[in-house]
């Protein structure tokens, strides 16, 4: 009996297939309709309802490997705050955070998101930098920004900054916006923020955005209203960009979402195909 040549699929074949789909989807610019979710609407509405001249605390807990999902969220929310004349205090619980904040804020200022007025460092915004210690650090700076951060990321004294002297602690901060990826405690940090402010009888809103990998772990806290609004992964970022009505050239997450959809179609097709092959092989035996 003649031996039929066996079709052997190696992982490298799948990687090449994946790469091909991504490149084709990028070039073809497939049109995908994105309907913003209820949660994304809530996120947008919550920032829209912050009065001008209020102060918002941004907490950045991700590294450069998560920038495809979280940079668009951070960029868009900073843009919305700048457009609404909201003051911003930035802190980070990851070592890479201050660099990410610097890049995003400077880019937005350069692109004119703050309007003709511009922004004054130390008055309209401040990058306090990185602090180690997770939840212990959160407790510390919420109680006293200046004591925990005597100097900002660039080495300037925080005691000489108007934004810090007007907001020495969390009492005057209108909302907290936290962006985090899957590192330890990341899921939990927004919940700690909420518990801290609730414990002091404050109505400070806590908004969060995370990478898709930890979304399933965050939903229980959204359902229990421990987080007031939530952006889930790249889809959440794309929703938010559309809700903000950003010009098409500033769509980052929306563009990536197109490719994401193509990749998902490929993955679903592969799952269906391999299952069909498996069951057909089982029947033959």
């Amino acid at each position: 009996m003649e031996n039929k040549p066996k079709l052997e699929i190696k992982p490298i074949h799948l990687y090449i297939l994946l790469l091909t789909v991504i490149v084709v989807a990028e070039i073809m610019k497939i049109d995908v309709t994105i309907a913003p979710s209820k949660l994304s609407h809530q996120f947008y509405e919550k920032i829209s309802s912050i009065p001008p001249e209020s102060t918002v605390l941004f907490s950045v807990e991700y590294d450069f490997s998560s920038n495809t999902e979280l940079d668009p969220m951070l960029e868009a929310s900073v843009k919305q705050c700048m457009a609404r004349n909201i003051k911003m205090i930035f802190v980070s619980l990851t070592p890479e955070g201050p660099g990410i904040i610097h890049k995003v804020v400077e880019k937005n200022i350069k692109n004119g998101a703050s309007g003709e007025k511009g922004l004054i460092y130390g008055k309209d915004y401040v990058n306090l930098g990185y602090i180690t210690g997770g939840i212990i650090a959160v407790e510390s700076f919420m109680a006293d920004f200046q004591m925990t951060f005597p100097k900002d990321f660039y080495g300037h004294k925080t005691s000489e900054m108007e934004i810090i002297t007007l907001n020495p602690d969390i009492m005057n901060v209108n909302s907290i916006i936290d962006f985090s990826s899957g590192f330890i405690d990341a899921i939990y940090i927004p919940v700690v923020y909420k518990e801290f402010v609730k414990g002091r009888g404050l109505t400070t809103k806590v908004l969060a955005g995370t990478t898709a990998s930890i979304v399933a772990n965050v939903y229980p806290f959204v359902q229990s209203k421990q987080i007031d609004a939530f952006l889930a992964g790249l889809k959440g970022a794309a929703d938010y960009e559309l809700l903000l009505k950003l010009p098409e050239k500033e769509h980052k997450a929306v563009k990536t979402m197109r490719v994401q959809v193509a990749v998902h179609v490929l993955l679903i097709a592969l799952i269906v195909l391999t299952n069909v092959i498996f069951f057909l092989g089982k029947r033959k035996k």
Partner: protein
Amino acid sequence: MNISTDINIWIGAFLTVSVFSILFRDNIFYKFAEALFIGVSAGYFFSLWLYDILIPKLFEPLLRGELIYLVPLFLGLSLFLSFNQKTRWISKIPIAFAVGIYAGVNFIYYLRSYIILQISSNIFGFVVFTETGNIDWATSVNNIIVYVGVVTVLLNFLRTYKSNFFVKNAGNIGMIYIMIALGTAFGYTVMSRMSILIGRIEFLFNKVFGIAL
């Protein structure tokens, strides 16, 4: 097409391709990128901890004469005593200090966030009415699904302890809920990883070759 002339972009591109080359087989470019990443990370974190944490938050207060900061200095330095058998016991003091504080601070947060508020948020009516007095079918059905899920998933974990007809069948339903939850978590994880991959490929297209996508 507008190929980048920025050396930083090309270094980024070279390292991206070097890391991806592991998908083909282990090679010197991957090893180089891996070693460089570990080295740069270690160097970056060391300088960050030194200039952002140790100098402003420990050495500067000490130089100003705030002697209370000798306590964290002692606790920090005593960690190094773990290298010697005779002095190892001293290094357990800062570890106990850190674990104690962490456990104490977290206890209340965890108790409230993961237990009390999670239980209380799952106590709601089966049937929900709208403001006009009609039944809110969507919310009501959702609530029933949540109730069935909570009870059956808990019963699923009871099967190993006590298994009768009810517990077994309810546990089977609970298992379906668990599989859906795990499937959702896995699907989201795949989505996240794909986003990273797409991000790197977009970097190669946009930044390196200047192809607007």
